[in-house]
């Protein structure tokens, strides 16, 4: 299995979904059954990615396969020398894992949608959009430079726009699509600025060469602040895509899209792209950047968890839980637990997809009823869905023997270690509180939908177990949430294949004084430090992790149990009446129910002022600027009128005046011609007299 062959296969994996998209879009009208072509392609893709994964981990475990080509060549530019923009592909362990995860969930969603979307009049186009999404997602994972990541980044934004606004008849759906695209674009601008800084200072965007130059000591614009700024800017891109605190508002609205879409995009893959990007640039993050990331992650998870507590729409709860879990992953990257972040990303992808598909099958069964208060007692009617849903809920709550427990526990341990080393205790605290709330709202959801008595008898009678095509993905995903796949020992993730050999924290290239001391490995590393098998952690951080491991585990299990207990007492055994509680803490309840009023805040501060400003500018443009132009025209007309008047009255006036004057003088003199001879003679005499006086010099 030569290296080149693996690269070719990976590129094939990348472009197959695009082919699927093109074929289905162009010929979808003529062949109604064409969607099967798309499903076939995705299945092939899955098999190929499994194959690549196996080959990669068997024979090429330690080296990344890279293939780059020049996209635009500027020749040698005056003052800068040769300059070109390179695109290329890099396949390393993380890529391969992501390949597998994306393709697996995409395939399962395709299968699920066969049944779920049956009867929709744009059935083919739906699968085409799924195809282009998979293509863009795979593109992000495979590219070895930031520009290509950016290209696929926006293409993923496009496909999410298309899929969210799939049922565009509903204004809310097209609004949600537009909102998603624009909010993502805000993040993308930050990402793009980060790219600009890097390209301006290093004249290349290939990650490896950038890291080499940073390691060699020259920082962007030769200042540490700019390096931190670059890190934060690129993280801004991740904030946009992974729905972190300021830019998370689009994810809950994105629930307007079909549920399988939410499962694929807004649970597992696309939102994970942000975490993947931060992990890619993890090595160049300075200490301050990591702190910012940790704080944003922690705060996001806390905020989303509080909002999820009071939501009544099943998909909204899951959406906020996704935001919260993403906050977890970002926090773990911030605190330096690189491997655990990716591990949580993978596990979260599986159980969250399972939860979404589960909710999809519930909604499908209840004829598109999404409000939990209408559901209840579905346990008997939909046993398989209930079983899968329960396992995933256990996983997300971090109950032992599940994959969620392993990854969440690792993250919490990491945050504890980070707290102990750097004294930022707020982050671990938030982490544990969120663990409690997650368990609570997840079990609240399970109880309200599956346990207790049906609240809407009519709908309940029609509810029936989903057909095999929908049930099968649920089962697979729930099975994948069990610990066995990741580590033989249920309690310690380190022993597992995931952490021991596959994913290692690459050594940071940031100059020593800028990064955390515990991040620097004491033992100098021989090969280039950003390749696969760099030393996992500096000794200090690894020790702290070991110390923190057990307390974190016990604490998280205790809190999880407490959350579950609380959920049961309130909803199952009705000891504490949730409504009475919410009335007591009414403003807190309302604050959480209305999503911390963030949407209204954004409308008030950004959206409406922009629209108002644009109306004002358009008015300004029409009246003032156009006014000036028309004004200039009227002014010239005015002046021409004046010069016309001037011409007729003044200049002509003179002419008439002279005529009039001569006439007047003529008349005056005419009186002299009296006809009498003597007056003439008198005149002659007087004029002679006058002449004498004038000429003669007395």
């Amino acid at each position, binding site marked *: 299995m030569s290296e080149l062959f693996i690269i070719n296969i990976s590129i094939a994996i990348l472009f197959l979904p695009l082919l699927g998209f093109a074929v289905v879009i162009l010929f979808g009208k003529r062949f109604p059954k064409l969607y099967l072509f798309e499903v076939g392609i995705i299945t092939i893709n899955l098999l190929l990615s499994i194959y690549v994964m196996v080959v990669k981990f068997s024979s090429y475990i330690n080296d990344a396969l890279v293939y780059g080509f020049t996209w635009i060549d500027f020749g040698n530019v*005056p003052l800068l020398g040769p300059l070109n923009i390179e695109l290329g592909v890099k396949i390393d362990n993380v890529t391969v894992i992501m390949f597998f995860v994306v393709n697996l969930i995409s395939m399962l969603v395709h299968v699920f949608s066969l049944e779920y979307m049956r009867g929709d009049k744009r059935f083919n186009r739906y699968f085409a959009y799924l195809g282009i999404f998979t293509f863009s997602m795979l593109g992000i994972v495979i590219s070895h430079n930031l520009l290509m990541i950016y290209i696929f980044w926006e293409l993923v934004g496009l496909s999410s726009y298309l899929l969210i606004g799939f049922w565009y*008849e509903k*204004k809310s759906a097209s609004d949600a699509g537009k909102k998603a695209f624009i909010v993502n674009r805000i993040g993308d601008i930050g990402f793009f600025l980060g790219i*600009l800084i890097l*390209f301006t200072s290093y004249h290349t965007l290939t990650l490896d060469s950038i890291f080499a130059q940073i390691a060699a000591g020259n920082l962007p614009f030769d200042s540490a602040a700019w390096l931190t700024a670059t890190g934060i800017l690129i993280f801004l891109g991740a904030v946009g895509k992974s729905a972190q605190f300021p830019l998370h508002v689009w994810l809950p609205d994105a629930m307007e899209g079909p549920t399988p879409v939410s499962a694929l995009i807004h649970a597992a893959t696309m939102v994970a792209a942000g975490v993947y990007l931060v992990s890619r640039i993890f090595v160049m993050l300075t200490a301050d950047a990591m702190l910012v990331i940790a704080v944003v992650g922690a705060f996001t998870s806390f905020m989303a968890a509080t909002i999820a507590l009071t939501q009544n729409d099943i998909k909204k709860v899951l959406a906020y839980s996704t935001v919260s879990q993403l906050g977890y992953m970002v926090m773990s990257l911030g605190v330096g637990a690189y491997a655990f972040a990716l591990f949580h990303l993978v596990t979260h992808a599986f159980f969250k997809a399972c939860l979404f598909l589960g909710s999809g099958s519930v909604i499908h069964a209840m004829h598109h009823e999404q409000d939990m208060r209408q559901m209840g007692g579905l346990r008997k009617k939909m046993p398989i869905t209930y079983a899968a849903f329960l396992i995933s809920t256990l996983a997300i709550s971090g109950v032992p023997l599940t994959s969620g427990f392993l990854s969440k526990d690792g993250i919490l341990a990491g945050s504890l270690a980070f707290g102990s080393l750097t004294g930022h205790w707020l982050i671990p605290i938030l982490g544990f509180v969120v663990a409690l709330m997650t368990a609570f709202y997840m079990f609240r959801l399970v109880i309200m939908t599956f346990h207790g008595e049906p609240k809407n008898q009519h709908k309940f009678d029609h509810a029936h177990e989903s057909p095999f095509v929908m049930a099968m993905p649920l089962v697979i995903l729930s099975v994948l949430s069990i610990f066995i796949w990741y580590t033989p020992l249920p309690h310690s993730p380190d022993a597992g294949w995931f952490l021991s050999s596959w994913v290692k924290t690459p050594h940071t290239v940031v100059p020593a004084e800028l990064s955390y001391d515990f991040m620097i490995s004491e033992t100098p590393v021989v090969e280039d430090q950003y390749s696969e098998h760099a030393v996992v952690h500096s000794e200090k951080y690894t020790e702290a992790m070991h110390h923190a491991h057990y307390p974190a585990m016990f604490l998280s299990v205790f809190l999880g149990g407490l959350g579950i207990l609380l959920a049961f007492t309130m909803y199952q055994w009705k000891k504490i009446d949730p409504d009475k509680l919410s009335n007591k803490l009414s403003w807190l309840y309302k604050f959480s129910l209305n999503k911390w009023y963030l949407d209204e805040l954004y409308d008030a501060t950004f959206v409406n002022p922009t629209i108002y400003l644009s109306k004002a500018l*358009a008015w300004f443009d029409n009246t003032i600027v156009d006014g000036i*132009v028309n004004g200039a025209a009227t002014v010239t007309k005015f002046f021409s009128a004046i010069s016309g008047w001037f011409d007729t009255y003044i200049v002509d006036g003179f002419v008439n005046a002279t005529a009039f004057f001569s006439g007047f003088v003529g008349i005056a003199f005419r009186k002299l011609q009296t006809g009498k001879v003597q007056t003439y003679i008198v005149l002659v005499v007087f004029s002679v007299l006058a002449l004498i006086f004038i000429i003669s010099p007395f």
Partner: protein
Amino acid sequence: MNGFPILTLLTFIPILGMIAVLVIPKDKANLAKYIALIATGIQVVLAIVLLSNFNYNAGGIFEQSSFQFIEKFRWIHIKGLSWIGTVKIDYFMGVDGISVPMVLLTAIISFIATLSSWKINKSVKGYFAMFLLLDTGMMGVFVSLDFFLFYVFWELMLLPMYFLIGIWGGPRKEYAAIKFFIYTLFGSVFMLLVMIGLYFSAHETLADGSQVFTFNMLALMDAANYTADGILSPFNPENLRFIAYIALFVGFAIKIPMFPFHTWLPDAHVEAPTPISVILAGVLLKMGTYGILRISYPMFPEITRELMWFIALFGMINIIYGALCALAQKDFKKLIAYSSISHMGYVMLGMASLSTTGINGAVLQMFNHGTITAMLFLIVGVIYDRAHTRGLNDFGGLATQMPVYTGFVTVAFFAAIGLPGLSGWVSEALVFVGSFGVEVIRTLAIISTLGILLGAGYMLWTLQRVFLGNLNEKWKDLKDIDGREYAMLIPLTLIILFLGIYPSALLDVMNTSVNSLVHFLSTNVTNFSISGL
């Protein structure tokens, strides 16, 4: 291929077409359409031949040796006029990396505009005669290397445009036509002044060694040719080069259009018939920026470097102002007019960076904007032909009624937004890379990124209002696009997709010239100090 006068042919074939159109008898008027189609078709073929024979690594901004397809003949040669010596004006044509993309763009857009004017029925002969005359004017501007010839073609383009908007336009066509005409004329008056100023301050040594005043752009670029006392010569201590630059810049800025001088564009677009809007947006807007690159930059390098911040500032204003105004428009065509103001702002920002990536991005953006906005106007034309209204709020849910058409619309809209993978993004990215790289205009570049966001805002909002949502009953009988419209939209879509994936097809063409321009600007600045105002 030396000897075959490809540029002259390229420029004057439409004139032959015009004559043919005028000659055909009245009753067979719709023959004019086919003649125009043939003429513009030949132009496209010639443009492709030009492109294929173009030598990619000939710089050719300021030295005649590296220009290609040069045609230089004596045009006006009056010996011994009393005090200004012999007047020698040459018919001097040539192309380099910057003008070839423009020639290609003009040929393609004219061909597509001819296709789109198939439905013109009011005095067809007059229309196509004016159309072909306009075509010659445009092509001439991009290939002429003599300032006098450049000015002749520049003015030649004005007259047919006036008639085309004034006669075949919409309700307020006279107002728009007059406004367009006077505005551009106002600009070209400035250009004339500077042209004459330059004429009298530079000498060109002829073959026989005699010194003679000259309009030859290449001679005007070379500082050695300037006399010691010329009004615009850099050696004269109190020269008026700064004012001349500003005047020339205003002349070109009106055409771009730049912020304070842009109000003619929305009116001209709203009132012009669809094919003319396509030409106006596709090609005419590029003349301003091309003029700056061809004339202002090489002839006044030191002032360009001095004022680059202001050009970038106005570029940024254009971007933000255009986008914000577009957000508030209710008429589809006016929205696209303001969006093209915003996109031309990117060209200015790229030009102002005076860096290779920036200027490459600017020229590529000129080409891309040409194709994308042409497609946008064709799209508006399609609806307008069917629904006879352009109000954005009158439509709704066309996606269900005209799915294929919505497909093309989506491509065009996302190209206009700057979605990677389509040509719009490549040039915008290069403009940002170029302008961000230059310390002086970095903050302006950062503010301009807001333009991408606003662009997404108004485009998606338009897409939603017109195409998404449920179908408005008024339009339930609109039929999808027909064969002719396919023939127009498909080539443009292919160009947008192809340049999005493989932009260096065009970038390689212009790269050497851009490099030599940047080199020229960076080296020639040192030896002149900016004379006092």
